[in-house]
């Protein structure tokens, strides 16, 4: 199930809640809770997300209509997770200058497979393959279709609405990726070893959550507290 993670930019709590149909992407909101102290002594949250059972990533469909062997491709790394604050300090929502990020199309894969950005970010989609690609998404509030374009060209999309964006290629059904659009900047994508780090977190108590594409249901959460002195907190997660 897709799970849209949304941190409201307003001070009020808007419980959009789970929609009636359990199959519809659920929108969970969390309100900003003011930090008890001014954000002058920021701390950090770091840790590791261990994803134990990723299952087989989606592969190429059998192609009985094909006339030959298809090349092998590096499997998608489904252990890549995004750790984020479900609640964030007000300053996190202040307007930031235009940001850019890149999601390549290379060897019939989207690289990176998981991208996390702040709302308002432009994402470039360069085609680094020899073949056409047609990047598109049908995700609610962030749908787009870049059409077919050849190697050496790129097109861009500005993602304005927080949420999880499923990205596909219309030509190659085995290509897919995720873009997580946050309303604030307190998130991090785990590295090859599952490690993450959130810097500049003001003192306060927060709910830390993890998104991973293999998790269907509520995301793993932990409550963490950054002391007034700007502590460094370690929070590990295990996803089975």
């Amino acid at each position, binding site marked *: *199930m*897709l799970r849209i993670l949304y941190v409201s930019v307003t001070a009020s709590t808007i419980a959009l809640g789970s929609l009636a*149909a*359990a*199959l*519809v*992407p659920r929108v969970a909101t969390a309100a900003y809770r003011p930090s008890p102290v001014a954000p002058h002594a920021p701390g950090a949250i770091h840790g590791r997300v261990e994803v134990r059972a990723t299952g*087989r990533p*989606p*592969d*190429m*469909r*059998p*192609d*009985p*209509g*094909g*006339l*030959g*062997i298809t090349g*092998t491709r590096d*499997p998608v790394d489904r252990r890549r997770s995004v750790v984020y604050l479900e609640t964030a300090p007000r300053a996190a929502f202040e307007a930031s200058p235009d940001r850019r990020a890149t999601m390549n199309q290379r060897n019939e894969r989207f690289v990176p497979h998981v991208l996390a950005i702040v709302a308002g970010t432009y994402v470039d989609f360069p085609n680094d393959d*020899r*073949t*056409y690609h047609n990047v*598109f*998404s*049908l995700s*609610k509030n962030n*749908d*787009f*279709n870049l*059409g*077919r*374009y*050849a*190697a050496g060209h790129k097109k861009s999309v500005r993602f304005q609405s927080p949420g999880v964006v*499923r990205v*596909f290629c*219309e030509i190659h*059904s*085995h290509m*897919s990726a995720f873009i997580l659009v946050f309303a604030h900047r307190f998130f991090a994508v785990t590295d090859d070893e599952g490690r993450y780090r959130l810097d500049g977190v003001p003192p306060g108590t927060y709910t830390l959550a993890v998104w991973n594409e293999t998790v*269907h249901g509520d995301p793993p959460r932990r409550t963490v507290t950054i002391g007034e002195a700007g502590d460094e907190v370690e929070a590990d997660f295990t996803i089975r």
Partner: protein
Amino acid sequence: MCTWRRLGLLLLLVIGTPAGAQAQWLPEGPITAARGTVTVAGEATVTVGGRDDSAFFNYTDYEHNALRMLRVSISGMWRPAARLAFLTELRSEDAQRVIPYAMYVRVRPWKGRALDVQAGRIPPVFGAFARRSYGSDNPLIGYPLAYQYLTSIRPDAVPFTADDLLAMRARGWRVTYPVGVTTPGPGVPLVSAYRWDTGVQASGTAGPVEAAFAITSGTLSNPRVTDDNGGRQLSARIAWKPVVGLVVGGSAARGQFLITTVETAVAEVTGRHGHTQRALGLDAEYSRAYWIVRGELIDSRWDLPGLAPPLIDGPVQARAAYIETRYRFTPRFFAAARADHLTFSTIRGQRRFAGQPTPWDSPVTRIEAGGGVYLQRNLTVRLVAQHNWRDAGQVRNRTYVSAQLAYWF
């Protein structure tokens, strides 16, 4: 149940299902097993439309209506080694028997050389349409005439005279001739997209050029699992990709067409064996931005015996041409159209048409247009209108409206 009621039910099904609500209970991609060496995918299409019991414009060689069909297919691949794979596609139409549409082994004999060999029930190398995945790669619902429309040619029965052939104009769904199998049966299309042939093929790539060659037991019109005449079909296609997005292909095929019993009976009269189907094809596809444009030209000739006057003079010929386009104007919505024409060479009868040169089957023109919406990436609804014209038959023109829900994983 009437067409409009069926359409209503389909729309109700679609509208009553939230766009995002399918993801949980329908797989989004192929299922893998055995450490990724086994991959299984599927496709299901529910197509509703009006009956076609009098005009038979959309009947297929399995005697199903292409615009009114439930089709389920499961495809699987076992790839025990990087250069070895076993592939199959099982298909059922209208919940009837399951047919092995494809079942073959694929081998790349030399590492580092883009040369592949496939053996078994294999995809046709001729043309472009028949290898496409139907639910996900057909912008419309109907098939091009060349790949579906039943002509009055049969591999198991032949006309005695030219008048016999002319008598069957526009009756391809129920053809009867005095020589061979005399019970009525369907004719064949120029190229069957509903059955694949059995044999061996090799394909290779060198830069922008792809080439494929096949030896099979049937013909384009009449693909076979088991041989029925001891002959072999040779077919080949060369495709050129000068720039990304453009593919131009040329195809040719030649194979023995008539079944053995008919060949034997005919040879006793004419002394001639080896009646063949020969075909040439030209296909092209160009895509850019939100557009895809495809077209094909196919010329097919069948040798028919001249058994008695008025003789069928030389091979009978059919030519088909279609062009289709699709435009995706938003991430969810697209529109598509196809213009299609099928013509036939002329023959002279005696009793029929006052001995004037007359096309041996009735030329057909078809226009199909419609649109669709992606409810999700792999769940599509299409609605099309198709109009057909021909100059013979009890029903000479007819419009069909058809809707389809297509899902694949």
